[in-house]
């Protein structure tokens, strides 16, 4: 139990560090993969809703504190994202890799809808701006993140077991 918590805590910290240091260097036309959402999805698929909700909440809170945005904006978005990913917990249902990709992409949409929706609600932004953001930023970010997630999955399923052996 402790080992699992430490493992995931380390994974989250590494993702946070990479997200703020290495990922900006991988930016293509301003689009960056979101490692934090990927790690949240992996955690929720493996450990379920409760773990996802709390991890999402505290991760979001950390990001809110770290970045000069509305306090609670990331927390709310990531909490609900954790809940969403937790629905597809592998202990409850088996999902194909393709379904997982779809879940991840939909997860990005959910996250950004909540994120920008909060902004819209708080500051009275326009809906057109919300959809524009989702079309021009969220979807490319989701695709880019899916590619990275596939690389991570490939590492996990093909390379890591061979290294262990």
């Amino acid at each position, binding site marked *: 139990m402790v080992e699992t918590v430490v493992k995931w805590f380390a994974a989250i910290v590494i993702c946070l560090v990479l997200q703020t240091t290495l990922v900006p260097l991988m930016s293509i036309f301003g689009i960056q993969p979101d490692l934090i959402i990927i790690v949240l999805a992996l955690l929720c698929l493996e450990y379920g809703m409760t773990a996802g909700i709390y991890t*999402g909440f505290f991760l979001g809170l950390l990001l809110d*504190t770290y970045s000069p945005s*509305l306090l*609670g904006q990331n927390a709310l978005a990531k*909490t609900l994202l954790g809940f969403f990913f937790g629905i597809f917990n592998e202990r409850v249902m088996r999902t194909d890799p393709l379904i997982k990709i779809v879940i991840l992409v939909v997860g990005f949409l959910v996250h950004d809808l909540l994120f920008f929706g909060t902004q819209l609600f708080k500051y009275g932004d326009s809906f057109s701006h919300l959809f524009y953001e989702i079309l021009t930023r969220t979807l490319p970010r989701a695709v880019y993140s899916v590619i990275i997630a596939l690389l991570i999955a490939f590492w996990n399923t093909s390379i890591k077991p061979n290294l262990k052996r």
Partner: protein
Amino acid sequence: MYWIIQFIIRHRNFSSLLVTVIASLLMLNADLARQQAVARVLTISVFYPFQFTVSQAARVRRLFSENKKLREEITALSVKCAQLEEAAAENKRLCGMLGFEENFSHTLLSARVVVREPSHLCRSIVINCGKKHGAALYMPVIHKDGVVGKIIQTLSAISLVQLIRDPTERISVMIKKNREVGILETPDSRNFFIQCRKYAEVSVGDTIVTSGLGGIYPRGLMVGTVVEIRESSDPLFKDLFIFTSVDFFHIDEVFVMKLAPQWASFRSELDSLGYK
């Protein structure tokens, strides 16, 4: 109370969601000052350990780069220090020579050693003072410490100097304190000795100077000091071993004395007599 806990445990997913969503919404709806206060508390309590670790890592990295930079600076300063020491030594040497030149009555041509015989024998040197500077054959070459040798060949800009350590060179010298005259010789360019009368008063440490009798070197130039006195094979004499005052392996600047040999004025008469 019990049923509330039971409800929370049974519906922990939804209760967790409820709690976190309410907390998020409360934070969102809080005024800016409260948000900043919460953020400050979170920053201090959550981020501080990470920031501390990261700052320590950055500090270590900075120390490495600082260490590298300091090493480079030390190297540069060492080189500069060595150059300054060299300049100081040269300055001291030249000041000494300047004082020597001022105290000397003869006209002196300053010269620098440009070629030195690359062996332990070191019997001759080449100086950058030639005919165009006024140097001529048989002119004595001296150093601030004493006699160096004489010019045996001159070209336009350089001259070849035969050192007194050359075994073929012999110069007339005397013990300064009692004017006892002898011939300075060296069989191997290392040991210098004079043969003088057996009953001459001489002791270790006595100064040996040129006698002025050889026709080339003027009287009174420093040659060296007596370091050992031995019985000679000839019962009428004794051998005085001399330590030369000039360090021939470390001379850089020398002076050529513009002095014609004493026989120059009656050279024609000598030639007519058949002297070479």
